[in-house]
């Protein structure tokens, strides 16, 4: 493969940013979601409302924050509040998007951030939900960012930390979650995916530059639906990379982690 003039974090941030429409209210976590949101804000979506879990509402971040409560998340914000207020906005229906990560995901978009193996005898104990469960349950649309690996894209997650479509169409509503919510897009280092409307199963809709359908299928631990007219996701433009590097993360606090 030819050497690219951008790293994987830059690429994923660009792909995710393009999906954010102007005017959206978005909960963002640390890392790539922050890059993507800030890039979108500097490009086509100046009127979005970025919100951080610990209480920062619509800050003008001078540099990228290291955590969801760090002082960069309240810098020149329009309001600071407490966590109940943050999550109540999601419950109220104010929040269009949540950006989540996870350690495991399955075909229905259920996310595991709690435990690998048996609950009472864990192979690996991860930190747990954090804000993810509430955001993924209550925001209208959930966007997920993960590395595309077979051990992460599994048939069934070991533990549902944040429910996706649980076990199929209608399951969220039957469980009692607010109607009309659920996973919307999955961004990986290989592909762009959504959830097919009838079956609520994960579906490949786009390939990142230089990636083949076979690459994606091989990196997925379950049978993936594949859309007929696949998008070939265009590589980052010069303008996107310039804004990302000069305005969004000039010190490469997050970007450098994609250098490998």
């Amino acid at each position, binding site marked *: 493969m030819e050497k690219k003039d951008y790293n994987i974090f830059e690429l994923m941030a660009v792909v995710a940013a393009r999906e954010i429409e102007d005017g959206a209210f978005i909960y963002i976590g*640390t*890392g790539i979601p922050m890059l993507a949101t800030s890039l979108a804000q500097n490009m086509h979506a100046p009127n979005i409302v970025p919100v*951080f*879990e*610990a*209480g*920062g509402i619509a800050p003008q971040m*001078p*540099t990228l924050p*290291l*955590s*969801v*409560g*760090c*002082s960069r*998340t*309240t810098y020149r914000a329009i309001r*600071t*509040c*407490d*966590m*109940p207020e943050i*999550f109540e906005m*999601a*419950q109220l229906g104010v929040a269009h998007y949540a950006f989540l990560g996870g350690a495991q995901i399955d075909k229905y978009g259920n996310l595991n951030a*709690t435990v690998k193996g048996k*609950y*009472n*005898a*864990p192979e*690996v*104990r*991860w*930190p*747990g*939900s*954090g*804000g*993810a*469960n*509430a955001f993924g*349950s*209550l925001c209208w649309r959930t966007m997920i960012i993960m590395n595309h690996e077979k051990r992460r894209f599994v048939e069934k997650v070991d*533990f*549902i*930390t*944040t*429910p996706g479509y*649980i076990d199929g169409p209608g*399951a*969220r509503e039957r*469980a*009692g*979650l*607010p109607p009309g919510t659920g996973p919307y897009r999955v961004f990986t280092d290989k592909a762009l995916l959504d959830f097919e409307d009838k079956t609520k199963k994960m579906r490949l809709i786009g390939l990142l530059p230089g990636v083949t359908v076979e690459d994606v299928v091989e990196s997925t631990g379950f049978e993936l639906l594949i859309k007929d007219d696949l998008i070939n996701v265009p590589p980052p433009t010069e303008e996107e990379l310039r804004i990302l590097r000069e305005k969004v993360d000039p*010190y490469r*606090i*997050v970007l450098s*982690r994609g250098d490998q």
Partner: protein
Amino acid sequence: MARASIEILDEGAGQIFSKITPNEFREHMREKVRNAWRDKRMDIKTAIKQFVHDGDYLTMGGVSFVRLSMAAVHEIIRQKKRNLNLAAGTRTYDFNLLLDAGCVKNIDCGYITGMEVFGIPYITRKRVEMMITSGEVGISEYDNASMAWRHKAAAMGIPFLPIRNMMGADAFKHSAAKKIRCPFTGEQLVLVPAIYADVCIIHVHRCDIYGNSQIEGALNEDLGKSKSAKKLIITTEKIIDTEEIRLSPDRTLIPCFYVDAVVKIPYGAHPNNMPGMYYVDIDHMNEYMAASRDPSGKAFEEYYEKYIFGVDNFDEYLETIGGKKRLEHLEDLEHLRVRE
């Protein structure tokens, strides 16, 4: 006509680690608030000795690595408090230290051990995995929202709050939450039990000698926590005159009648971020993370010896991390005077 009772549709098998006692708490508060205007200044050794006891349910202010009351955490460890029950909505460095020191018996989990962008300390993760497998630690599973609402419920003086998440998640099965049908809308709701804590510790930017406290930046769960613990220790960067409080009453986030102790600890959140004052000490966090990766545990022991057991108080600790020069650099970072 017989009245329909509210039907419990489902319930988790998790334990409740704090007693739900709204009436007892009312009696407690009735007496406690009489001390509103007492000068509550004391040192951290006295505050921890007097207000934190083995077996207590402890809840701490701040979130992630922001505004954590580190002087209090160090002192709890040095005084060898044991069998603490911990509220753990996004705990990071403070919780990890208590866990490594063997202070923790039960956890209401929202987020534990992780250090966000820094990763998960290896030794601490292994310790948690072992403690879960052996049954040495009890865990009930929640998330940051339900934990925040559990504190809020207690702060409202009620035994639970109805919420709309946790449904369809495995955490529900390992929680003490219950699912009901809403008597008004007929929809399903989850009820989460209130947390009436024994003791709460919050680090603030400034307060007066009575504990009227001002906080800058994100507030996390601190408003709910400050009102719903029997004892509240405020550690503060600065003590200000009550006249200053009265000049801008809208900035008082914790009024004095909830407060039991006021302890002045400048730079008391180090190595964490104190919004508007000093930034995260990234070098120190990297040192801590690196020590945690030595599988023998030796490097981690040395870390704890150097920074906690080897010092007597927080001023001595601040010298070990580089003293005034280091702290001024963190202030410059916070105020964007130098680049990261």
